[in-house]
């Protein structure tokens, strides 16, 4: 067994030191009958490395990867180019195989990059401070709602029809089981909803998304004013963080909490996870913020250094009185995010965002010429909604048979007649002319 260094003579010597006749005897506390006397059945014995590669490689080969076919999928997960340096650096063992930085003297590397990460997230979102990451955008959103409930001491969240359906469902799950009410506005494919009408003295927060799930770009300044006038908080979710390189950040529109899915920067699609949730707030709410936070301090020699801080909010200190049960964050994904963002810098992020928008805008123009396709968006960043002449799920299946991964049918996330013909199409800096031509040609055939 290549990972296990003990030899039989080692075990013998160690058992002698322990004073135990056998390893099995160390399991004497296990109730009678519950101790297995032989290896589990069905699983083969240990496999050489090459066989493991062959075994799982065969599964990988049954899939069509987004790098192996024209791909236009988005809906909260985006295919972007990841510079080679990112994956090289995150695989350094000192990052990959370290734990949560509980002992700051031997974890300054992790703590410093988390401090830099928090600063980048605050800058991008236009907020004061950010935490050291959450599981993903959806769980960050539900933590934001819980935080707003704590701050306002109210128990009703108003959810936009433009919020990613998974985010909405995760919030609704928590609402049902932790005792807060959710008012979910109808799907907002047109981007015209009015949420202010749902405000009232019992509303803790309004949750919106920018660009919305359907791609529309919003100015939430007026909504923020109305929300604040009603004593509630505005939570803005961002599922495509690259957009923040080109768009007015939520912090400048009056958001109180900004949550985001950070996958687009530094992290592969990976069939949906692990991703990295971003969480940024106004300074005055920092002590109600969930999750790990890194802070600056000094050591006994007066030198600048970093520690995990404000831990009196957290479960390992506060137990049942904690602001959240979260222990693990998404450290390595946050590292990938922060390295990629550092490589981009101001100039690189601006250009990346502009490139995404330009590519998507040109693709929208071309798709709008296809018979049976109607573009629903006046505004969008790198993803927009098409209304098709046929049900979108069937269209996407037909495109897949032509080896084109042709977008995300809204009905995949929201079943039913209402969204049946809606298709989300995303383009990024990786989308080529040839891929766009393939999609246009494919849609023409399928919709004919």
């Amino acid at each position, binding site marked *: *067994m290549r*990972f*296990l260094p003990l030899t039989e003579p080692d*075990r013998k010597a160690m058992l002698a030191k*322990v*004073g*135990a006749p056998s390893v099995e005897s160390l399991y004497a506390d*296990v*109730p009678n009958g519950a101790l*297995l006397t032989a290896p589990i059945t069905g699983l*083969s*014995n*240990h496999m050489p*490395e090459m*066989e*493991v590669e062959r075994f799982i490689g*065969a599964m990988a080969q049954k899939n*069509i*990867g*987004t790098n192996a076919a024209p791909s236009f999928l988005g809906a909260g997960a985006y295919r972007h180019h990841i*510079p080679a*340096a990112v994956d090289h*650096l995150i695989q*350094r063992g*000192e*990052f*990959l195989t370290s*734990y949560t930085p509980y002992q700051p003297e*031997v974890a300054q*590397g992790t703590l*410093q990059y*988390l*401090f830099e990460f928090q600063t980048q997230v605050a800058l991008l979102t236009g907020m*004061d401070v950010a935490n050291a990451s959450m599981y*993903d955008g*959806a769980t960050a959103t539900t933590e934001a709602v819980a935080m707003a409930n704590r701050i306002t001491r109210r128990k009703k969240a108003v959810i936009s029809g433009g919020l990613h359906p998974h985010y909405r469902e995760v919030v609704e*799950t928590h609402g049902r089981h932790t005792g807060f009410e959710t008012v979910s506005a109808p799907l907002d494919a047109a981007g015209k909803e009015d949420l202010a009408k749902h405000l009232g003295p019992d509303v803790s927060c309004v949750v919106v998304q920018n660009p919305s799930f359907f791609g529309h770009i919003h100015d939430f300044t007026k909504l923020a004013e109305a929300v604040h006038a009603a004593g509630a908080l505005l939570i803005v979710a961002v599922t495509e963080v690259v957009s923040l390189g*080109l768009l*007015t950040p939520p912090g400048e529109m009056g958001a109180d909490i900004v949550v985001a899915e950070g996958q687009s920067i530094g992290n592969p*699609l*990976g*069939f949906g*996870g*692990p991703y990295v949730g971003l969480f940024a707030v106004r300074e005055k709410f920092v002590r109600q913020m969930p999750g790990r936070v890194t*802070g*600056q301090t000094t*050591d006994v020699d007066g030198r600048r250094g970093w520690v995990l801080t404000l831990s009196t909010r957290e479960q*390992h200190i*506060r*137990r049942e009185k904690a602001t959240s*049960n979260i222990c693990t964050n998404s*450290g390595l994904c946050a590292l990938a995010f922060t390295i990629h963002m*550092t490589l*981009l810098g101001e100039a690189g992020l601006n250009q990346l965002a502009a*490139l995404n928008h330009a*590519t998507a*805008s040109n693709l929208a123009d071309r798709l709008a010429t296809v018979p049976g396709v109607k573009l629903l968006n006046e505004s969008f960043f790198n993803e927009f909604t098409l209304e098709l002449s046929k049900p979108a799920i069937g269209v996407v*299946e037909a495109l897949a048979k032509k080896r084109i*991964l042709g977008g995300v049918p809204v009905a*995949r996330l929201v079943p039913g007649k209402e969204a049946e013909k809606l298709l989300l199409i995303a383009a990024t800096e990786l989308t080529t002319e040839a891929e766009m031509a393939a999609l246009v040609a494919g849609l023409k055939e399928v919709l004919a």
Partner: protein
Amino acid sequence: MTTSNPPINTSAGTISGNRGLQLEEPLIFEMDVPGRSGVDLPDVPKHKERLAGMKRKGAVGLPGLAESQVVRHYTKLSQKNYAIDMSVYPLGSCTMKHNPRINEKIARLPGIADLHPMQPVSTVQGALELIDTLAHWLKTLTGMPAVAMSPAAGAHGELCGMLTIRAAQLAKGDARKRILVPESAHGTNPATAASIGYEVDPVPADERGRVDLAAFKAKLGPDVAGTMITNPNTCGLFENDIIDIADAVHGAGGYFYCDGANFNAIVGRVRPGDLGVDAMHINLHKTFSTPHGGGGPGSGPVVLSEALAPYAPLPYVVHGANGFDLVEHDGGKSFGRLKGFHGQMGMFSRALSYILSHGADGLRQVSGDAVLNANYLQASLRSDLSVAFPGTCMHEALFNDDFLEGTGVTTLDFAKAMIDEGYHPMTMYFPLVVHGALLMEPTETESKDGLDRYIEVVQGLARRAKAGDAAYFHGAPYHTPRRRLDETLAARQPILRWKPEETKKAAE
């Protein structure tokens, strides 16, 4: 002829502030040169702008660095970290074992890393097969009939398990409000139960470091929804009354949630399903060695009993008429969705790679060697430290601070001195049921000779403390990139991000 050089003052600081390979490193924001970038991107093509007038007006404020600088920056930061790749990382209850590199390669395979979660299921049959295969082995290893794969980490798995229990009870019209949680539990257990509105009722430990069975039974009643118990527990001991506990809680109409954080001690040898467990999360980043990555990402699938399975969260993989299918919506009994998309696929592929690499024989050896290593530590340190509870232990050895009594050295001081010796400290002050706890989990991937060196150091430090060298411990660590950091200052005047003026202030 010999030349006589003037004596060198080795205690003087260096000009750069560096000390050999210990290199000082500024923040990225302090290295900014506007216009510099670490990427080259294509030109932006002509296009119609459709931004609804919401184009960003000001700069983001991100610094500009070239790739060469970025690579050096993160390389230097990495060198300020301790890692399993260096040496023993005996952080009890965290299972810091070697991370096989094949797992990293597998997770990055084309056809796994580049799959979009919303592709048509016909194009991701292999991915669903991978999830289903891992699910099968998790069920087999735990002796449980079902598993929910989507939870993102251990605490998220706890939430999943408790919501399943709650949903099952509500479906019977049997709303209950109390959860029994041993005082030795991880902080996430009471935090999870409280977060979904349960009242947490602590159960004391007995003098053997186990759940006090009589006290436990006395607390049972018709309002008890269930119990959350870690087994093996956080004292590193197997709860030998576990079946009585399970029977008692079932008898009262409650469920048994098991915190599976310590599954590494029993994998391949004991199936929690045989102990009466109704739900248990498995930290793939512990037992199945997906990398901890400086605090995540984790993955916390939850195995479930037949009674709880119908309430499992969405989505889940099923065997359909045309191969594998994914159930994402359901009018049935599921308690709902817990996370975006389908779960931590990148951790699933690594964990499956780990399970296959070890096989049925290797997994048994994993738990056996982990338990043997911990017992060897305990036996070797018994005379110099103070073992918290009598008898052999499971995968971790727990000590209290009796051996430091009268020395003026605390558990924290002792831990900091271990850092200077080149070791990450053990878990300190946890579990709470033991005074000044030192919890050591060596895992199965440590060699005997490696453990012998570690034991020698810990023994030496214990003797040094007893010899009256408290001042040495109070000052430790001495040889790290930073010495003891002022955590009180950090909490009282939080500086949570870089700002030009605060950096200047700190430099003055």
